[in-house]
């Protein structure tokens, strides 16, 4: 890899915590947020004018919208003290070997090469704000599948991009989608043509690695009629001393008879604010599945949603949250039934420990005329000690006829009987508790590919031992 010319580098970063890798930035926008920064980002990326205009318009919207007053306390975020764009190297690497060594070192810790070896799939790993490593399996190309980073997609597939970008989540949807649209960078772009079934999950790793670095990736997935894709997003981040903001936008279009599954394992370090808008549009007889695991971050506010646009559409959210000390996971799901004869389920499992707080927040909306819909929500919460907290806030609005709606929730602790049973068989208490917790989230883990399930079980184990903060 050739030496990268430095345009501007943050100079005062020291190795502080975690597996920090010295930064080497091609370009780093100044802290703060104003039209000049946005223009600079767009110029650096050599974007078409419509995108620049959309960014500037979104910035205006972001400024006008008030901060949400519900959910977690977001008043501590200082938008002026965040870097809105970094670019780690000036060109895309085509293979693993070409990656800069320090970036490779970080990914080694995350196990990206293993994942690649195991899946032999396209890996699109995001380091800082832009995708630097990208490999696309030949078979996918042959099938006509586009799997690229979002910046390249804007350049290489402008028509497809312009047709769908911002249509599922318009900039004005909420304050953070406006922010993302103004300063977005990186993320994945997937297009699956008609009738194509992508057999192996497509994966991308996202990382935040600069102090005060906001990460605003933008993902757009289009599943054409009768297609199938499973996309996996996993996140980790080393620990820094000041708060970081992660505010992604994920838009998915699932056309007639298509199926899309989007799996997330979010494990940001516990000083990250994770404020993400994820939404899918499901058309006739299409299926959208969100599998959403939230383990890290200081505050997460994330409610993957499905708009059921045409009859026969089906939406599914399976959500797991783990909140340890100082964490608040405000997660859930939204199902918006626009068309009749649509169905949805939300299953939420949450675990609170060491003073952590998990909140399920959900919304089922059934519009007038969307008759004969069925929706079911189930929330289970496990409280591991008496300092922790769990909340359930389900909102249901039904304006249609002949709708069946169900909601169930339970909150409990690890049952003494289960513990007694395991301990009477010689299993130490801590291990028994871990087993019970792993059993509790099993409906979630069994939906994950094997290595993710293993990783998740290991993470739970670490959390249970208190070795991860």
């Amino acid at each position, binding site marked *: 890899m050739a030496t990268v010319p430095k345009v501007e580098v943050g100079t005062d970063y020291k190795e502080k915590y975690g597996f920090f890798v010295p930064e080497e930035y091609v370009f780093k926008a100044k802290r703060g947020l104003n039209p000049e920064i946005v223009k600079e980002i767009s110029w650096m990326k050599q974007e078409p004018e419509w995108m620049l205009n959309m960014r500037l318009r979104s910035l205006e919207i972001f400024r006008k919208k008030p901060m949400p007053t519900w959910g977690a306390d977001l008043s501590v975020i200082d938008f002026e003290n965040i870097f809105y764009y970094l670019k780690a190297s000036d060109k895309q690497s085509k293979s693993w070997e070409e990656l800069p060594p320090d970036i490779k070192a970080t990914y080694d810790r995350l196990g990206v090469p293993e994942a690649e070896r195991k899946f032999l799939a396209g890996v699109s790993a995001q380091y800082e704000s832009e995708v630097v490593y990208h490999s696309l399996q030949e078979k996918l190309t042959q099938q006509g599948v586009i799997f690229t980073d979002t910046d390249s997609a804007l350049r290489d597939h402008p028509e497809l991009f312009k047709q769908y970008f911002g249509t599922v989540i318009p900039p004005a949807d909420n304050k953070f989608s406006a922010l993302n649209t103004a300063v977005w960078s990186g993320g994945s772009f997937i297009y699956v043509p008609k009738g194509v079934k992508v057999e192996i999950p497509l994966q991308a790793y996202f990382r935040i690695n600069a102090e005060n670095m906001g990460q605003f990736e933008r993902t757009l997935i289009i599943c054409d009629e009768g297609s199938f894709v499973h996309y996996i997003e996993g996140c980790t981040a080393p620990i820094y001393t000041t708060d970081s903001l992660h505010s992604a936008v994920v838009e998915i279009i699932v056309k007639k008879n298509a199926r899309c599954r989007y799996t997330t394992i979010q494990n940001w370090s516990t000083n990250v604010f994770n404020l993400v808008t994820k939404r899918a549009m499901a058309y006739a007889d299409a299926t959208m599945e969100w599998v959403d695991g939230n383990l890290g971050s200081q505050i997460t506010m994330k409610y993957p949603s499905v708009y059921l646009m045409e009859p026969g559409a089906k939406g599914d959210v399976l959500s797991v949250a783990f909140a340890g000390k100082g964490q608040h996971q405000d997660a859930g799901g939204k199902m918006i039934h626009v068309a009749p004869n649509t169905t949805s389920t939300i299953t939420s499992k949450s675990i609170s420990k060491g003073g952590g707080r998990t909140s399920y927040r959900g919304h089922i909306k059934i519009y007038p005329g969307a008759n004969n819909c069925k929706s079911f929500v189930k929330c289970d919460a496990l409280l591991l000690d008496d300092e922790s907290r769990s909340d359930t806030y389900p909102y249901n609005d039904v304006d249609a006829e002949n709708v069946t709606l169900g909601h169930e929730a339970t*909150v409990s602790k690890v049952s003494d009987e289960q513990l007694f049973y395991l301990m009477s068989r010689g299993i130490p208490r801590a291990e028994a508790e871990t087993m019970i917790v792993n059993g509790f989230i099993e409906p979630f883990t069994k939906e994950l590919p094997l290595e993710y399930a293993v990783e998740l079980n290991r993470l739970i184990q670490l959390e249970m031992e208190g070795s991860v903060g």
Partner: protein
Amino acid sequence: MGFNAESLEELRGEPDWLRDRRQSALATYERLPSPSKTDEEWRRTDVSRFNPSDFSKLEHLDGLKLERPSGLPAGVILKPLRQAAMDHPELVEPRLFSLVHADRDRFAALHAAFFTGGTFLYVPDGVEFDQPVLGQHLSHEGGNSVLPHTLIVAGRGARFNYLDEYIAEDDAETGYRTGSTEIFLGEGSQVGYVAVQKWGRKVWHFADQRAELGKDSTLRLFNVTLGGKFSKTRVEASLAGEGANAELKAIYFASGDQFFDFHTLQDHRVGNTRSDLLFKGALQDVSRTVYAGMIRIEKHAARSDAYQANRNLVLSDKAKATSIPMLEIDNNDVRCTHGATVGPVDPEHLFYLRSRGIPLQTAKRMLIQGFFGDVLDRIPFEHARKLVEAELESRIG
């Protein structure tokens, strides 16, 4: 004309402390804005078309019919609330509006400023009686306000039942109605309380019920909501003593263009407490209902059990039920479950009955009766159970 200091003059002959309290509540009413759609509690509950001043004529004093159980034990005080405020200030003053706060919102303030009729029941320590106390609140004419308030104090180990019935003489009358209740349960007391709301179908009704449960006390509270074009009821139990047990049940049957709103709170303030809530409703025609319930388990309230369920049977395509069951759990050593369902009559159940030759209408009626059956069994005393069964029967038809 409106609700103002002048109209307070109508309520003469009360002790100074009550007068001051009414004035302060009136000031609160004048200060507070009408709830807006941005308040979570009022998002689905539209009061923009309700102007209390339209009904500022007070119907009072004769609006209450109290039936004293025969052979009421000595020491029991049962009298109209305003009378009790004069005769027993030491019992009434510290408690009146200490659970149902006047400054909670505009309507609570208005009720506190102008409450007219209502009952005071005081049952001393260790006193038990079987025959229920029956309080009937009647409205004789429309276009006015009927604002009764019930205050119940149960001494240690007291045991009794009480029924509040809100009755309209004319089903088509308009007006402003309330029916709020405060219940204090002393240690080990057992109180059964039933409120049957059958005001006219065009009135606006607001009710705040709140009970405070002492150690080892048991409350069985049952609501029946049938009347009003708009009916908003808050049911709140504050479990303040270990071993307290609150059973909060309700049935509602909405038809025509009725709108019912229920907000409930099970507040577990200490450990070893239990609450069990079940609200069941059926909706016909273009009626709408909103249920929002909260279970709150506070930090040190370990070993608490809380249950909350709301079931809605939607009998018409145009009726709409909204159900929002919420939990806030701050302690892990608890058992909490909640559930909510909204749906039509199960077509399989209907098919089963029809396949046995039962006509559609009869089968539907049987299913509705069955739907309410399990909760009717929980009505705490016979008199109220019979009353409710008869009311329900006439509505299911």
